[in-house]
């Protein structure tokens, strides 16, 4: 804590909360089917640009909050979020050298993984309705990534 020199902790907490809210905001049906996991996008961003600000703990907490909020099995989104965070953190130095558009590919991959984990746990815990649209969501998320990243970039000073 004391050694955090300008780590954007508040920005991390605030934007994660915002991502959570956007993700659960009641919207028209046609939007909700393609709405990507905004929380995962925020998690990816902070894992790349400020891996020490939130660490693994912040994504875990945010995922847990999402689970409680949506009434899912506790730990479902938390597991997905920390997996995404971990992968992004391990590759963050390479990713920082890429352009936002190049990063989109990576974002697509991890969002798909995120969705896959959630889907798998849903299947395990007994929800097994087919929802083919959910595989579109990572693609939408990847397309939105440059904008999200630019917006989030304004919340802290990039080193």
């Amino acid at each position, binding site marked *: *804590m*004391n*050694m*955090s020199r300008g*780590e954007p*902790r508040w920005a*991390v*907490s605030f934007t994660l909360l915002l991502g*959570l*809210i956007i993700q*659960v*905001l*009641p919207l028209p049906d046609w939007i*909700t089917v393609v709405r990507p996991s905004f929380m995962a996008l925020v998690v990816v961003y902070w894992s790349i640009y400020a*891996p*020490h*600000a*939130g*660490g*693994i*703990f*912040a994504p*875990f*907490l945010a*995922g*847990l*909050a999402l689970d*409680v*909020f*949506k*009434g899912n*099995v*506790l*730990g*479902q989104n*938390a*597991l997905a979020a*920390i*997996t995404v*965070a*971990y992968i992004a*953190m*391990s590759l*963050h130095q390479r990713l920082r050298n890429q352009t936002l558009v190049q990063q989109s590919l990576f974002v697509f991959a991890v969002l798909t993984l995120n969705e896959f984990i959630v889907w798998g*746990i*849903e299947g395990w*815990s*007994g*929800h*097994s*309705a*087919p*929802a083919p649209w959910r595989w579109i969501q990572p693609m939408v998320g990847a397309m939105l990534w440059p904008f999200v990243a630019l917006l989030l970039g304004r919340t802290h000073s990039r080193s």
Partner: protein
Amino acid sequence: MAVFGSGSSRIGGGRGPSFGVRFFCYAILSVVLMFYDRSGGWLDTARYGLQAAVYPLQLAVNSPSAAWRWLQESFATREALQKEVDTLRNQLRDQQLITMRQAALQTENATLRGLNGVLPEVIEKRLVGEVINVEVSALRQRLLVNRGGNSGVYRSQPVITGEGVIGQVFRIGPFSSEIILITDAEHALPVQVLRSGVRTIALGTGRSTALELPYVPQNYDVKVGDVLVTSGLGQVFPYGLPVARVTRVERDPAQPLAQIHAVPLAHVDSDREVLFIWERPGHPAAPATAEALAVTPPKTEATQPAAPKPKPKPATKPAAAKPADINPGTPGPEAASPATPNPEKPVPETPPPAAPDPGPSTTEAPAT
């Protein structure tokens, strides 16, 4: 937040456990949480508190649509309001016509059943709740309602609207409760065809306008337009609440079972208000309780502690009850069909499609 972000500048290096180790620990923690949450137990208590913690957030998230509705309502034109008043007035008149003879019919029913007095209504108490959030997706059909444990709402409490059954309480917090709709793909509801008395189970489909009845044999009497009511089995819903209307019956001679589709009478995705109901314990139409169903040899004394309030006193010997006798102490005679939120695949229930009467009759009464 972010207590664990250490000051080291390189991932995996420096002091403290590396990200990999931390990731591993949290992953294990999530998996443990999932297992415990699945099996219930102490996590339920934790969730009760967590529900309260996220409740303000849920309210906040819902506030834009609530504000929009409020705005719409406040700027409703006089004509629109007048129109609504007219509709409501018409509805009221129709309802009055329907209920006009109810008192007479109740007395008549009591006489037919050989009772000394009229049974009170099965619904003892009700509570109006306001819908905060609606989630209708293929995976989950849920409502969030602004009543919870503090208002006396309990788990698997029946929830209805003016039109019919809407669902049951799935999870409660102190100030809010989550309701699983009858159309949720995980929900199964024991129902009965009002006209013919056929009992079966209505499964949710994940679409808010459709129910399925997959366990009805080919030759059973179900027609398009039939009204389905709750059968009083399954320990949750009292007997006789309207549920759905049959919209399609497919009989394929090659299949042993007919495929029947129904549409819920309640508008599960658009209703803004719901009713929590408390049924009168021991009432013949009340859902059979678990302990009552578990009774092995029927005892001679008037049965449960949560015993009958209705006027007719329970017969002292329930087992020897005459066919026409009503015994409020002994609840619905059949074995419980699956308690609803557990998606066990239910066995097709095939009782004789004769008696819509939920009261015990001698043929079905537990053997002495």
